């Protein structure tokens, strides 16, 4: 009898403590989704088949999507996601697209008719302009997502590969083939 009472009261006490903690230390949103979202490149291009990076992050956490569906992020992103979620890294899913060099949208200002359709399509508000006024892209803010290409009625937008200067230069990785061959032998 004592044992039953003791256990019941313990269960009650812990239940109350846990209930209190759940209310008091509640965390808004899902922290794992935030962590996944932080690793995604934020191009908001939708190539992963979700409407932006955050929805894709949510899908990954809910197991509705795999970690290899982000072409702009490419291999480094897949590796980082695999690390975070303790999953196996895998090659990029070709159905979602392929890894490409970073691009930026450029509007041919002579052809632009000022229809504002691209402005509405841009996920990061990187296009400025008004109705029947020329539009232009803020190159610094453009993520190269391609979303403005499709709505343009006069096809005046081009995706141009970003010029890589010294800032984007990296020391090359030393050739590892020499050691590979010998260690295999």
């Amino acid at each position, binding site marked *: 009898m004592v044992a039953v009472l003791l256990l019941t009261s313990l269960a009650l006490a812990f239940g109350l403590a846990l209930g209190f903690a759940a209310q008091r230390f509640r965390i808004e949103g899902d922290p794992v989704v935030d962590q996944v*979202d932080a690793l*995604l*490149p*934020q*191009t*908001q291009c939708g190539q992963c088949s979700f409407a*932006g*990076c955050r929805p894709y992050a949510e899908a990954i956490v809910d197991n509705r999507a795999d970690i290899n569906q982000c072409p702009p992020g490419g291999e*480094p992103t897949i*590796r*980082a996601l695999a*690390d975070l979620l303790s999953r196996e890294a895998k090659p990029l899913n070709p159905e979602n697209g392929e890894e490409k060099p970073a691009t930026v949208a450029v509007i041919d200002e002579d052809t632009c008719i000022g229809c504002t359709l691209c402005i509405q399509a841009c*996920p*990061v*508000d*990187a296009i400025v302009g008004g109705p029947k006024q020329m539009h232009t892209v803020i190159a610094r*803010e453009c*993520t190269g997502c391609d979303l403005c290409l499709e709505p343009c009625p006069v096809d005046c937008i081009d995706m141009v590969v970003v010029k890589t*200067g*010294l*800032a*984007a*230069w*990296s*020391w*090359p*990785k*030393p*050739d*590892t083939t*020499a*050691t590979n061959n*010998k*260690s295999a032998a």
Partner: protein
Amino acid sequence: MIKESPLAKSFHGGLKLNGHKLESTGGTLRSAPVPARLVLPLNQHAGRAAVPLVSAGDRVLGYQEIARPDGEISCALHAPTSATVLGVQRLPMPHPSGLMGDCLVLEPDGKNEFGNFLPAIDPDSLDLPTLLKRVSDAGIAGLGGAAFPTATKLAVAAATTGITLVINGAECEPYITCDDMLMREQSDQILLGAKIILDTLGAQRALVAIERDKLKALESMSAAIERLGDPRFQLEKIFTIYPAGGERQLIQVLSGKEVPAGKLPIDIGYLCQNVATLVAIYRAVKDGQPLVSRITTVTGSGIAEPGNYLAMLGTPLETLAESAGGYTPGATRLIMGGPMMGIALPSDEVPVVKATNCVLVLQEDEVRASGDQMPCIRCGECEQICPAQLQPQELYWHIRGNDLAGADELNLSACIECGCCDFVCPSHIPLSQYYRFAKSQVRLLDARRVQSDIARQRFEDRKERLDAEAARRKERLEEKRKKRASRENTPKAIKGEIDAILARTRGKVADSDEGGETR
């Protein structure tokens, strides 16, 4: 006054190397000729590229500012002599990438006319803001090889009180002797430059660190300290171990204290300045002379008459090599900097920049072929000599497998790229190239992360805006619906409303008619 550093070896690892210093210290300091064209890369310092102030066709006087710094971490550029500006051109830069960069090209007119752009200041009546402004206006960057803007370094140091100034005369890398030469010939100016920093920054003392095998430099500096008679100066003889001239290693030798990884020397109260930088500061203050030239060692078995040359910034390495007697028949490898940390250059058309402490030309048999690397046998030699106390072999495995996060956990960023591990590796693995590769990858990923954070913010702001717009529209609709619902539905009320509308529109029609008449 002269004291031997108390410990035989006061930092971990390091190497005793064949100095090859005698080749280039035989003669005196010579001046390199003014070349036909001066090529001044806009980005020859750490940080952002300078912004040109002149355009093609302009005539500039010597010492005239031709490019201004862009932001906090950047450096001004000045015309080394009177010249005509040929414009900004994309030319090869002295950079391991071999990429082209924007360079201001000047054609010296041979008149050697100099303007008086910066007024001379009396060093004794100098305050800190004036010094920082002058150092920045004179375009001074660290001349030891890193070319970090000196004004920024001093500004950071000024926030700390009671610092110790370390005058870095430990030129530890083989072949390089430009600082040795400077200490022999301009010892007084070095000390006066240091005194300016001591006085304005309120530093307690200055340690002049020189390796004990640099006998002539020791003698000259010791005499200069005697002449100056300032009790704050102290000469420190240190042992010749590579890389004792590295900022962190030198401070460890002098103080026994280690600069923690991820922190700066100033965080433990030390400010390190290269001897040539101090002379540049002195000249900028005393004579109002900006940084337009530097001493460069031209040496190696590939050079006929090795020596030290005072060269204008922008002088092509070709011109320097010519004035040093030209190349020897077997010369194959051109290196900017020393054999341990220097970078291989594809061509001698590139110019002398602020960081060019040495031009090293070697013969084929002195360069290790790159193809002869073997598997790592985990001997641990690299760990034994690493002056940063890292685990080079562990770093290597992580980086080879593209695991940058793993390398970061092993303090990759603390690697000073001294090349000691490469030197001792029995398997000839180019270890420091792996670390350089990984560091630049980390830098690129960080830059990408910053960019993506901005994109995320913009995406979220846009979403918020669209949501707010949608909410407002819904609200308006709701209001209208409510208004309609609250309306009386009796025929009389409806008629009254229709009359009101008619009266309103009639009035408008009448108005527009009147308007029509006046038109």
